[in-house]
Each structure stands twice: as structure tokens, then as C-alpha cells.
């Protein structure tokens, strides 16, 4: 089976590269990139490597490598793939350069929406947005005569019906692997109840009414989930969908294309996307908005930066997007929003809109603390109020140690 899949992957990549217009110029400067390894980055890296002299490192551990690699002088990589979560250490240490002049020179095809501006200076160029939103089995919901849920209450009501009907192993899937994934679920839910993650003095605001509600709402879902949900990450949920084990999940938009991958999925064509459910009436969808994009290292020569940026623009052009339309919710011109991207677009354009995931030092600290403290609540060792107190205390300790709190 592995062999078959390899052959298939080979065939697709050959098809992919022949579909590209070949690179419009010959790159003569050696350029290296470090980025995450998901589908969209593979597409961009493939397009860039056609110009020659390009080496991409697609590594899911990029976030631990990037800060140190970019701090070296000269930087170990010219280009970096970042998201709003992982750009923070690079911005803080000023190891990435402002791109205004390069955008003026090579960025004619960029839309203003793509330019990440910090204090007016362009520090990154986004290529796609990502968000967690509702994916559901349309056939199951239609059979049971359930309208597409728009709030978490409706999701749970639908889940109860699906459970009674017994058509799948578990009505709901969730990316609740303890640690980063579980923390992200809270970071999605909590602003959905109108909660502010931080107060003005950098202390955390999670120990609040919204915090209680967010925790209780998360726990209410456990009744409809796999009992082993605390080990399930995005890939696990994706596979549960593909194997027909679950009917609904709030999952990353970047996983949508996999649902229709005939080689892996037994439910191709049956999964629809909708906006992330709201946590309360009139609230924003309970999720956060993410972008992925490129940055250019500060510790390289201007000539190298010039060549690197030019190459990146070639990788992020509309030819690449047309060849990989469903791999992401592209921000690049030429993107045709298909049925797979409807959920993400509905989420991002909702009114009120969900917040962007904050790129701050405090958020990194709080995210770790949430991931470590929430499991005890979900396993029933601790109640919600005590968990919020524990989160607050652990965050305070970490923030004092990191210097953001006095």
C-alpha cells in the first residue's frame, strides 16, 4: 500500500510540475528556506525550486529551530515560513527585515491584504489564511434531518441525535491532544464567549465568567467524543473523518483537501465545511484567524535578500495557486474559492469576526500553561474554578520568569 501511495504521490508531483509554467528566470544565488511541512508549503517550495539553487527544509519542528537559526550571523536560512503564532520570536529579536523596498520592486502582484504591517513597515507577506471551522458529514446530517449547526449548543444537540441514531462511532471529533492542541481549543472558545485573554497590565484574564463557560462548553463535548480524545491531534481527527468514524469536528481549514483525497478517504465528497460554531448568541465564531506567510532574514546581504524575495514571489504566484487551488485558502491572486474553502471564508468574513491569534510573548506563555493545566479539568481531577485559578497562578509564575510581569 505504501508503494502504491508512493507511486501515486510521484505521479501527482510529476503532474503538478508539468502543470506549472516553468520558472520565468534562472536563480543564481543560493537560497535556503525553513518552513512548516504541510501541503501549501510543499506547493510553494516546489514552485520555487524550479528556478534552481533553492533548498527548502519543510519541518514541523521549524518553530523550535527558527529563532536560533535566524539569530546566527549570517542567518542559516534566507527565507522563513511563519504563521502569526510563530513570527513572534523573530519580530521580538528583530532577526527579520522590513520588506517595503522589496515589495515595491517585486511585489506588483501582491494585494494589500497580504502585507503584514507592524507599525507601518511590512515585516511578512502572507500567502494563506487558516482557521479552525466546522466540518461535517453532509449525508448523515441530511439523513437525520439536522440543519447545519451554527452554535456549539446546536452542535451538541446534533451530536446527541447522531449518537442516538448510532451511525458513527463518535458524533464529534476534536483536536484535544493535551498540550498545544488542547490549549488552542480554549483559545478558540474563550474569545467566543467575549473573554479577553490578557488585561492591560499583562496579567491574564482567563479566570473569569467567560473562562468558566469556555471550560464547561469544552467538557460538554466529551460525552460525544472518543474517550481517548486527549491524545487526538489534527492528523488523528482527519483520519477519523476519512475512516467514517466521526460526523463533525471543528478542524483546521488546511486539512479540508485531505477529506476528498480518494486514496485516503472513504468519505470523499460527503464532507462539507461551515463557519466555526458560535459560543454565544450574537458572538463571533469561536475560533481564531491565522495566516501563513514568508519572512526574510535580517542577517544576510542585501543582494541575497533581493534574490530570496524575488524567488519567494515566483513561488507564491498565481500559476502555483491555480495548480494547487484546494491546498489552502490562498490570499494570492488567481485563487478560486471552491466548496472546500466555504467554511473558512464564512468564518473569516463573519460579523463580528473572530480575532486573529495574538502574536505576543505573553500568548506563548499562556498557551503552554493552558495546555498543561486544562487536562486535569477534562479528566475530572479538578473543577473549572480551581483550574482557572491554577492557570492564572502558573501563568503568573511563567510571566515573571520571562520578564513580562514584575
Amino acid at each position: 500500500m505504501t508503494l502504491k501511495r508512493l507511486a501515486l504521490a510521484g505521479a501527482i508531483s510529476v503532474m503538478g510540475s508539468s502543470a506549472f509554467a516553468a520558472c520565468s528566470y534562472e536563480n543564481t544565488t543560493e537560497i535556503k528556506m525553513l518552513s512548516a511541512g504541510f501541503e501549501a508549503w510543499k506547493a510553494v517550495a516546489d514552485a520555487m525550486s524550479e528556478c534552481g539553487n533553492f533548498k527548502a527544509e519543510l519541518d514541523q519542528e521549524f518553530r523550535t529551530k527558527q529563532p536560533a537559526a535566524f539569530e546566527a550571523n549570517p542567518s542559516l536560512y534566507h527565507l522563513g515560513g511563519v504563521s502569526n503564532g510563530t513570527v513572534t520570536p523573530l519580530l521580538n529579536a528583530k532577526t527579520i527585515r522590513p520588506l517595503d523596498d522589496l515589495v515595491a520592486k517585486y511585489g506588483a502582484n501582491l494585494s494589500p491584504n497580504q502585507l503584514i504591517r507592524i507599525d507601518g513597515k511590512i515585516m511578512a507577506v502572507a500567502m494563506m489564511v487558516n482557521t479552525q471551522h466546522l466540518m461535517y458529514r453532509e449525508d448523515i446530517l441530511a439523513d437525520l434531518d439536522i440543519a447545519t449547526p451554527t452554535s456549539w449548543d446546536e452542535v451538541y444537540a446534533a451530536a446527541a441525535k447522531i449518537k442516538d441514531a448510532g451511525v458513527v462511532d463518535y458524533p464529534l471529533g476534536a483536536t484535544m491532544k493535551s498540550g498545544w492542541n488542547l490549549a488552542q481549543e480554549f483559545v478558540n472558545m474563550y474569545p467566543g464567549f467575549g473573554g479577553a485573554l490578557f488585561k492591560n497590565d499583562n496579567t491574564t484574564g482567563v479566570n473569569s465568567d467567560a473562562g468558566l463557560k469556555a471550560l464547561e462548553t469544552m467538557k460538554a463535548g466529551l460525552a460525544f467524543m472518543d474517550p481517548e480524545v486527549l491524545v487526538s491531534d489534527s492528523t488523528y481527527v482527519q483520519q477519523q473523518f476519512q475512516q467514517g468514524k466521526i460526523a463533525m469536528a471543528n478542524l483546521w481549514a488546511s486539512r479540508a483537501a485531505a477529506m476528498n483525497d480518494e486514496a485516503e478517504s472513504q468519505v470523499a465528497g460527503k464532507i462539507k465545511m461551515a463557519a466555526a460554531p458560535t459560543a454565544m448568541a450574537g458572538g463571533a465564531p469561536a475560533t481564531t484567524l491565522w495566516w501563513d506567510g514568508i519572512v526574510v532574514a535580517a542577517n544576510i546581504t542585501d543582494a541575497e535578500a533581493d534574490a530570496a524575495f524575488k524567488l519567494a514571489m515566483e513561488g507564491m504566484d498565481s500559476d502555483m495557486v491555480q495548480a494547487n487551488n484546494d491546498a489552502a485558502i490562498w490570499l494570492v491572486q488567481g485563487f478560486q474559492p471552491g466548496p472546500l474553502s466555504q467554511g473558512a471564508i464564512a468564518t473569516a468574513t463573519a460579523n463580528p469576526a473572530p480575532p486573529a491569534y495574538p502574536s505576543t510573548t505573553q500568548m506563548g506563555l499562556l498557551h503552554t500553561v493552558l495546555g498543561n493545566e486544562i487536562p486535569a479539568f477534562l479528566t475530572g481531577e479538578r473543577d473549572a474554578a480551581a483550574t482557572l485559578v491554577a492557570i492564572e497562578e502558573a501563568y503568573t509564575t511563567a510571566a515573571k520568569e520571562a520578564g513580562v510581569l514584575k
Partner: protein
Amino acid sequence: MNFKTFFAFVAPSVFMMILFIALPLVSVFIQSFQITQPVMQQLEVETCTPGFITQTCVTELKTLPVIGEDGKIQTTTEWVGLQSYRNVLQMDKVWQALSSGRLADILQIDFWKALRFTLMFTLLTLPLVIGVGLLIALAVNNAARAVRGPVIFVSLLPFIITPVIGSLSIYWLFVGDGILTAMMEQWSGTNISMFAQSWTIELLMYFYRVWHVAPFAFVIFYAGLQTVNMDTLESAVIDGASRWERLRHVIIPHLMPLIVFIALIHLMDCYRVFDEIIGFRSQAHVISLQWLTVDFLTPDDAGNRAIARASASAMLTMIGIVFLLILPLRRTWRDHKGSAHS
């Protein structure tokens, strides 16, 4: 061997031990009393991020590190005494739990939760590893010569497997509807989730560790069995000693130094249990001291690492190992002195 030759042989090893063990240890010891943090300032920053169609710009007060003249983040290092140890141990909460009689609350604190598991894991697997290792060794020793080779080969296999791979294999066999869980479900007729509660996870961890380490004990014991004094054994047979009595009074006393040796190695290895936590993704239910240290060290998305707390937690782990090793070490020392006198 004269001293010069001896020195020439040992020097590279001593040098490496100083470089890679002693010096880092000193550095960690020092860092556990220090906190190094960036100098922070508050600045109003406007950030524009993309939506699907238009951007949203927010202006907010951000806490950012100050960049020094050399282009690096300015940091300050302060001596904080036992602060990091206090942060890890959280003794105030422990006393509170003790005085209010709610002992379970102590296990809510990461360090104590990790210590509980680490100690239980170490002390429960120790007799099992020694027992199973001895059993295999005796079985192989009594097996017919022709099958010994293959039996030794098969019993050594678990020890050859890389620990992370081994624990991942066990995880995949049991997670969700893994092959073995599916078999157990068919057999028992109920839905089984091995990774949904801590006791089943711990059970798998004990099983995995014993399965993985017992071959090591077996090899050592098997070698030891070859040196048992046959005259003593034969006279025991003539005296009418049963198989069990021969084991109890001749073989085990003969193997005692080896048992202590295996206990020493196992205690040191097991107290640093880590692979199982990662392989089984058990962080929600079960954590170990070594995992806690690594978790402190792992940078978050914003690049923060809790190096001070990681150092304190590492020092505490080392102190724990020293305590555990005192008993078997004292015994070896006594034996050593005893044999020197005779």
C-alpha cells in the same frame, strides 16, 4: 600497571566526563539559582493582519524586548536564591493540602504528580525486571543445548529495539481500534479505550518497560549462572535440597552482586523515564520528572523557555536519583570492604 600507563588509558574518558557531565552539571546547578530574562519595554504597536478580503489593524500596547547595540536582545541575570525551586515544588500548596487533609490536591502540582509516577514506575518495575530476567535466565540455562541459541536471540530482541520506536509500536497497537484493542474488544464484548484513563496507560507503561529491560537482566544473570559453583550445587542435591532450596540458598546468594548491579542500573535508567510519556502521549494523565524538565526547556511559539525552572527540576531529579541509589550503593560498598578484608 604503572600510574603513567593507567593515566594514559583513563585520561580521555575522564576528560570527556568532565566536559560533558561535570561542567554541564555545574552550569545547571548555577542556573537553578539564577533567572535570566530579557529587558522588556512597553510600546504602542500597530499590527495589520489579513482577513480573507480585507485587513484588520489593531493598535495595542505590546511588551517587547529591548534590542541592544550588538543587535541582540538585552538580558539581565539575577541571583534569586531558591525561587525557582519554590516555583517547581510549590511547597505552600503542599502544606495547605496537608493541613486541610486533602492529600489528593498535592498530586495536582506538576512536580509531585510527576514524582508520584516516577517513583512508582521505578520501584514497581524493579522487582519485575529482576524476577522476569532471572526466570528467563534459569529457563534458558535448563533448556536443551540445541535450542539455547535461538531462545537467547529471541529473548534479546526487545532490548535491541530503540526505546522511542518500541513505545510508539505499543501505542499504535493499542490506540483507538488498534489491533490488540480490537482483539480485546472482541474477546470481552465491551468497548475498550486504553488511553482514556491513567491506570490503563500506566499498566501499559509498566508492561512495556519490563518487556524492554528484562532481556538486559537476563543476559547478566545468564552469564552469572555459568559461574555457579557446581560442587556446592551437587552437595546441595546430595543433602536433599529441593530445586527451590537450591535456588534460594545457593544460586541467588551467588548472583546477589549482579542483582545489586542490575538494580543500580535500573534505578538510574528508570528514574529518568521519558520515552514512554512521549510515545504514549500520556501528558494529560501521566507525566514524569524528566518530561517535566524537557517541557520547561521546550520553547513555546513566542520563543520563551523556562530555563531556571528546568534547571531546578533537573537538580531535583538528580537529588532523587542519589537518594534512590544510596541503599544499593551502601551494599556494594560493604561487600567491597568485606572482600578486601578477607
